[in-house]
């Protein structure tokens, strides 16, 4: 199993949520103290370095116009990590390809990071959560189709080495595609796509790409992974190895159960701070109009809300115990966390990658580092015994 330290790089020092309508899109950036933001970046980058020093991998993502995530340009941060880490693999999960105008530029950015890191980059592609369409002015119509065409163009750009090719697709046109430099890894860096529901898994399996899912819990994740495995069966392809599957959870490991749970409570900021108004949560076209209609008729969503990635509703009001039970949070002592992950591993039919959301909100640097180290030193060895045993049978 591979483990990835992940941090959304929030700017958590915000006014009372009662004073703003939405933490995304409209919260004025005058709220930011640039000096404090720079200090936060120093420590977040240092935490990724600690993960590398402990033998873990690192993962970054990208969001726009939001205090929940200051990584507004993930390739910039991934490029830094390429130089300040040594052994870690670097997963960018992911490039919001449906919201970017020029896939060839993304192909170039990824090739460059892959080269600078000497082949340590793994490239994720995402359609982008719904708030992003307002922040990037991206049309919320046919985004999945746009995402797949962009991925096809990017992978063609990575793998064409005999001079320019022509691309005249439905969404993107480019007459002379010939990226310099090309990726370090051949034929391409490993490719990841996120799936929130099982209906997204099929197309990912068709391409033999890695599938990642966020905060879906035991059941949601099992269904997404099973749909991927079913699709391979349908195609008559061999079964997928564990390394094709990844899951992101909130994870904090303490010396004791209580220390671990105390850390996890800090991480719940991530679930409870996503206050967004309905127009940004339900842009027309992002979901079928009947789904949007039902949502608009439902209870008002402009209170503190959970991240849109998870299929589990009402996470904001759940207790830590409920969230642990559901498999959204792994927390406690090393033995407890290892047991929780082992249970998860068995329930979802195996997975080879765990994305550890190990910092959120106001959790300080020292506490974050303690959690990372404790996991690397005391949970990883326990899990290696389990997963090796499983894969040997």
């Amino acid at each position, binding site marked *: 199993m591979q483990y990835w330290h992940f941090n959304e790089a929030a700017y958590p020092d915000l006014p009372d949520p009662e004073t703003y309508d939405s933490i995304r899109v*409209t919260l004025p950036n005058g709220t930011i103290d640039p000096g404090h933001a720079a200090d936060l970046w120093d420590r977040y980058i240092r935490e990724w370095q600690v993960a590398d020093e402990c033998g873990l991998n690192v993962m970054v993502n990208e969001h726009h116009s939001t205090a929940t995530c200051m990584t507004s340009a993930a390739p910039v941060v991934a490029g830094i990590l390429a130089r300040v880490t040594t052994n870690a693999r670097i997963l960018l999960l992911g490039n919001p390809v449906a919201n970017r105008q020029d896939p060839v530029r993304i192909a170039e950015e990824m090739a460059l990071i892959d080269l600078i890191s000497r082949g340590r980059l793994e490239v994720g592609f995402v359609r982008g959560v719904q708030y992003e369409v307002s922040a990037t*002015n991206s049309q919320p119509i046919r985004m999945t189709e746009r995402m797949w065409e962009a991925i096809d163009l990017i992978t063609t750009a990575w793998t064409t080495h005999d001079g320019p090719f022509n691309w005249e697709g439905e969404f993107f046109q480019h007459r002379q595609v010939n990226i310099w430099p090309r990726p370090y890894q051949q034929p391409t860096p490993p490719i990841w796509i996120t799936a929130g529901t099982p209906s997204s898994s099929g197309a990912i399996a068709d391409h033999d790409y890695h599938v990642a899912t966020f905060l879906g819990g035991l059941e949601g994740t099992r269904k997404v992974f099973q749909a991927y495995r079913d699709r391979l069966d349908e195609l008559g392809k061999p079964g997928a190895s564990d390394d094709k599957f990844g899951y992101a959870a909130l994870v904090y490991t303490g010396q004791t159960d209580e220390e671990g749970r105390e850390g996890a409570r800090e991480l719940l900021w991530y679930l409870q701070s996503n206050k967004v*108004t309905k127009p940004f949560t339900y842009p*027309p076209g992002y979901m079928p109009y*009947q789904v949007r209609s039902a949502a608009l008729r439902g*209870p008002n969503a402009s209170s503190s809300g959970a991240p849109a990635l998870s299929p589990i509703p009402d996470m904001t009001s759940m207790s830590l115990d409920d969230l642990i039970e559901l498999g959204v949070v792994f927390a406690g002592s090393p033995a407890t966390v290892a047991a929780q992950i082992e249970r998860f591993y068995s329930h979802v039919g195996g997975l080879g990658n765990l994305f550890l959301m190990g910092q959120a909100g106001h959790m300080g640097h020292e506490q974050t580092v303690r959690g990372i180290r404790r996991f690397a030193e005391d949970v990883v060895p326990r899990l290696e015994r389990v997963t090796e045993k499983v894969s040997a049978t």
Partner: protein
Amino acid sequence: MQTLDLIGAEDGIEFGYGVRLDARLEGSSGPLALVLPGSERSSEDAVFIEALAAHFTVVAPSHPGFGLSPRPEWCASVSDIADIYLDWLEASGHTDVILIGLQFGGWVALEMATRSRSRIAQLVLVDSFGVKLGSPTDRNFADVFATPHDQLENLIYADQAFALGELGGAPENTVLEMARNDEALAIYGWEPYLYNRRLGQTIDRIAVPTLVVWGAEDGIASPDYGRRLAAHLPHARFEQIEQAGHRPQVERPHRVAELILTAAR
């Protein structure tokens, strides 16, 4: 999950390029009044259309993607919609047409009128979208996709008696139609937002009499914007309607119809 029952292959009216649309036909005498709606629900225009039907032969389609009209995938721009209606006007042989564009439909009407004016006798624009005026940082039209529903209805209607109010208490089909219309508006008008830059250069060739009608309390596109738009049209007259917001044909249907009748005489 409930969806709207869109018109089938045999229903509605065949407009240009074989595209069938849900449409209201009212009145059987007088010249053709082609009413191009905005993103209001089609029932909201009923009184206005009846008022027009006393004097005109009224045809009021729901554009592709709006209301109960299917949208062929190739129809993805306002120019495409304009072509569908122009093709139909050509084939049906109507002349002296009163072309009435309401809000989004005003944009469609402008696209038609810049392409072909021979069949149009009178152009009417009611709180119309379509033209970018001013500098890049000027917002001509409120961002309807960023505005919560209750605030949006305050911008649209002068009299909140016309508003749907809390959507949880609104009939399911009503909200479904609203949601489908929002989606269609996003398909045609997300970016650039509710305008075609080309129109800024071409509307000065619209040499047909034009009536520009504007709700005094329009919070989506201000009357000041309406006056500036009228000033760019060579034969335009501006009429402001009191006690009306963005959809005067809904709030003051008889007043708007009366202005159109006077202009068309």
